[in-house]
């Protein structure tokens, strides 16, 4: 089974990145033999639709399951339409969460866990409307 874990680094000992669309890397791991491909996320800086672009990347790699911290509404819809299972709330290293998943300790979600623009840095505001509505 091909499992994709969002990760802050590109090794099996890297911590899980809680963001899906704006994660640093996708660790695409074969759960049978723990061989992996590290894909750096080109969607991280997208103005909009980072989650959708990230889902596109993962879908093209033939991934069966995504393990991450949170997933937004658009990414959720995209992943679900591609038949990819989504596990959220994961923490620890890539290796640890894959072991946990194999032991059945992580469950799949059926709904997005955050609103849009979750993974954007503080101070970036909310995309298109940034710098607006600053009243005392």
């Amino acid at each position, binding site marked *: 089974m091909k499992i994709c874990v969002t990760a802050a680094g590109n090794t099996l000992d890297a911590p899980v990145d809680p963001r899906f669309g704006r994660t640093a890397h996708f660790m695409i791991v074969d759960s049978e033999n723990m061989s992996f491909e590290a894909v750096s996320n080109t969607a991280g800086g997208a103005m909009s*639709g980072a989650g*959708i672009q990230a889902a*596109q990347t993962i879908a093209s790699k033939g991934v069966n399951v995504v393990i991450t911290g949170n997933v937004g509404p658009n990414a959720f819809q995209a992943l679900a339409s*591609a038949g990819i299972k989504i596990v959220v709330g994961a923490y620890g290293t890539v290796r640890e969460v894959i072991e946990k998943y194999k032991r059945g300790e992580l469950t799949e979600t059926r709904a997005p866990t955050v609103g849009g623009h979750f993974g954007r840095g503080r101070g970036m505001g909310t995309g298109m409307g940034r710098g*607006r509505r*600053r009243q005392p």
Partner: protein
Amino acid sequence: MAVASGKGGTGKTSVAVNMALSIGNVQFLDCDVEEPNAYLLLHPEISRTEPVYLPVPVINEELCDHCGKCAEFCSNNAIFVSPEKVLVFPELCYSCGGCAIICPRKAISEEQRKIGTLRLGSAGDLELVYGELEVGEPMAVPVIKEVKRQIKNDRPVILDSPPGTSCPVIETVKESDFCVLVTEPTPFGLHDLKITVQVLKHMGIPFGVVVNRAGIGDKKVYEYCKEKNIPILLEIPYQRKIAELYSRGIPFSLEMPEWKEKFQTLFNQVRKLAGK
């Protein structure tokens, strides 16, 4: 002439509306389509209402072979292609039309999606145009463009801008002969004023400052304007009567006639500075 501010709630609409009423026979465009409010002060009679549409892609799944070229092309990531299905996220679409052109199977056509409403009306000799973005829609610019398409060249045009310095503000102030920047003499007012000044300088639009709620805060806005050679065109004091009239939806120059003259002077000054 555009009226902008950077910081929200400094008095853009108050200044724009009072100036419009004081000079008379102007076209007033409320470009803050996310929260239009000039109509609350102008009490217009609306004569025409039109929907604002944006074209968005529709996929013909029978023709589509899920090659993914449309999703690859879309810089806004508004299209997702899975092996069996194509998802379109219309609220992310900028309506560039590129996906339909690039599709090798001609499987993409466009449909019209309503994103807002244009309203036209009048209050005395003043013509009012404003837009209203649908709730939940993120893109104000296409609605602002529609508002600005109504500009007539036979009389002065006053554009009431949204706050901030992002795309909706740029769209509003662009091609203006002059921009009045309304600020308040506080650190917050100054902070956002500085950003807006940078934007206008970059766009090559001449500008001047109106200080609203003069008397509160500190002197830093005045020092900054002096240092940067920015003309302070008018000061409106922090006064209970002005606030009370505003709260009742009455432009203060109507009840305080001395202000009518001040706004006329402001407008003449703007004309001179804009070379018009």
